[in-house]
């Protein structure tokens, strides 16, 4: 049973649209992360948060933004989607044992 939820699971959207990918966890974890992963490729960290009102950019430059208003919620927003944003987006969280729990991911296709 998943304790971290991502919606939608799949999304096909037109160029220029604004989208928000949702990520929620029920474990009370303070640390949350967003990764981008192309098929068969490495995970790239794009954003992370160590608590409410704390957000940082990751190693991979991204045109997306994130917010952390509540502990359990860490949404990712693309103001204007482009075909180059087509990818899988994975959300993760961690607590005291430092191991990440990942969501099932959102596969985004921008046409």
């Amino acid at each position, binding site marked *: 049973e998943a304790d971290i939820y*991502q919606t939608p699971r799949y999304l096909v959207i037109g160029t220029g649209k604004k989208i928000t990918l949702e990520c929620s966890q029920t474990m009370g974890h303070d*640390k949350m*992360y967003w990764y981008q992963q192309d*098929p*068969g*490729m*490495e*995970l790239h*960290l794009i954003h*992370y948060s*160590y608590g409410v009102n704390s957000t940082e950019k*990751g190693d991979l430059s991204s045109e997306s933004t994130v917010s952390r208003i509540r502990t359990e919620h860490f949404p990712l927003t693309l103001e204007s989607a482009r075909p180059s944003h087509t990818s*899988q987006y*994975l959300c*993760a969280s*961690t607590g005291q*044992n*430092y*191991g*990440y*729990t*990942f*969501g*099932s*991911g959102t*596969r985004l296709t921008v046409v």
Partner: protein
Amino acid sequence: EDQVTQSPEALRLQEGESSSLNCSYTVSGLRGLFWYRQDPGKGPEFLFTLYSAGEEKEKERLKATLTKKESFLHITAPKPEDSATYLCAVLDWGDYKLSFGAGTTVTVRA
């Protein structure tokens, strides 16, 4: 900067043919080494955490070991359902972000 290198990139096994995956790492201070399994189109699934050299952990046909410079994931008598990409990651003291390797894709043929 933390570095994680996994080898081989891909591994094709016959059912029952045991093998090992390697994860070499460089960190200033190891807080933990993590193994994950990832199936196509899904998020990584946690397998093991190892904290110190000499530590070993087992789960079904998988066994993870750790030295000061590398970790091995041994797959004993694999089955087709063990086919997946196996990811290694390290966590440095003073940080809360895992550094991931590129993964080893294992294919087990019946």
